[in-house]
């Protein structure tokens, strides 16, 4: 399967979903009116959400889908599967999407992070039994986040307007980043007609249920305590992405780890 084919298929699906939802919800209420009061305008600019009416409709639809399908499945999964097993499955899911993180570390120009990720992936895929046990974390290579949206952020691209997409809170930049990340996921290149394609679907669906099960309590608390959950999620997401991008940007560790540097000092190469 060619790269373009995978990309166009994913983008086509997203565009279809987005446009059908947009037409279903009515195009007249897509953009929010710009307030005239200076204080309200400052809040409007800080929220960076000109398409708020449309985003809110998509948010409500997602909430309904979550209430009747995803949340009950996540609760059942948490009830039926012991914590240790869930932890291992979570490790496996993390390991499976780490090739994307590696490519983004390279794209962000952070060789140390990319090297750590590569070592981590090799350790967990072998000693860690295909990612089920996070051995790499125990030996000093913990998981770190990165995606194409964050890579774009480190290239100086601003997030653009906030968007609420079917996969959750996002922005124009992060939404495009999501599409780009699909190109770097090896699981999208599994040939058709093999049993592995079913594995790919199972992996994606299971990943959603597992991910939701990890946030059951937090989202319940949000629904209980928040007066406007949409605005709360928007604010938390925007702050979190900013902090994640800053953490990558401010990672100025040397390319080679300290232990290698010291070893190299003690064992310099012999001139021929």
């Amino acid at each position, binding site marked *: 399967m060619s790269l373009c084919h995978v990309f166009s298929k994913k983008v086509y699906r997203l565009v279809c979903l987005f446009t059908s939802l947009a037409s279903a919800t009515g195009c007249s209420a897509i953009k929010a009116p710009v307030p005239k009061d200076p*204080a*309200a305008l*400052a*809040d409007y600019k800080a*929220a960076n959400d000109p398409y708020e009416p449309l985003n809110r409709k998509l948010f409500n639809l997602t909430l309904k889908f979550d209430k009747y399908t995803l949340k009950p499945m996540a609760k059942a999964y948490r009830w039926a599967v012991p*914590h240790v097993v869930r932890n291992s499955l979570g490790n496996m899911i993390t390991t499976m999407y780490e090739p994307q993180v590696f490519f983004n570390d390279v794209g962000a120009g952070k060789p140390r992070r990319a090297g750590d990720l590569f070592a981590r992936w090799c350790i967990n895929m072998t000693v860690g039994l295909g990612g089920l046990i996070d051995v790499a974390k125990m030996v000093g290579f913990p998981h770190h986040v990165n995606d194409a949206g964050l890579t774009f952020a480190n290239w100086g691209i601003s997030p653009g307007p906030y968007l609420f997409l079917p996969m959750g809170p996002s922005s124009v930049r992060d939404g495009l980043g999501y599409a780009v990340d699909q190109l770097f996921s090896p699981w999208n290149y599994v040939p058709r007609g093999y049993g592995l394609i079913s594995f790919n679907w199972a992996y994606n669906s299971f990943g959603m249920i597992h991910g939701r099960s990890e946030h059951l309590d937090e989202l319940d*608390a949000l629904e209980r*305590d*928040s*007066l*406007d959950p*949409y*605005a*709360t999620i*928007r*604010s*938390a997401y925007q*702050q*979190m*992405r*900013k*902090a*994640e991008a*800053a*953490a990558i940007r401010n990672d100025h560790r040397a390319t080679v780890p300290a232990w290698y540097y010291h070893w190299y000092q003690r064992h310099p190469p012999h001139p021929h």
Partner: protein
Amino acid sequence: MTFLINRRILTTLISTFALGCILIFFTPSCFANDNSRSFIQNFGNHLVAIVDSPISVSEKKQKLIPLVQQNVDFNAIGRYCLGRFWKVATTQQKARYLKLFHQFLMNAITDKLGDYRGVQFTIGKITQNGGNDLVETSITRLQQPSISMQWVVSYASGSPKIVDVIGEGASLRLTQRSDYSAFITRHGGNINVLLNALQKKVSEHVHSTSNN
């Protein structure tokens, strides 16, 4: 020789002056840093001691409330969370809001008592931001991944008080402010709607705890 002695005196004077400057300019921040470290350490130790003590949940809550009241600046957080609407609120609205916010935040903290069980924490670096100290902590919980949190300590009230908590890059008070601001804006800028909604949340909480 005289030249050498003079130079030595001059060097000593300059060194003393430089040292004095360093002490004058840097001591308050170092002092504040140490204060913030011991403040968060004390608060955390007390919190863990209460949560891990072999008493009932209601007794734990009763012990936790004065500790939180003493160490968290509820009024400062409340004012921040109301954002631009604080300026336009009447005195009565402000008083009612602060009272409700106090109860609301206290409920949110005490409801999470179970989450703090078996918590261990280590204090990391302390930085300054906008006149406040940011104390980094790494928190380890039972059967949970460790998390890093930043505590924002303010000295504006004369003594150290927690005015914000930042987890995974998200500030608690900023997120809360976005929540309130969006809610009031969507209700035509009417602060009373927020007060009634907060009152409802607080009443629901009383009802749910009395039923348990």
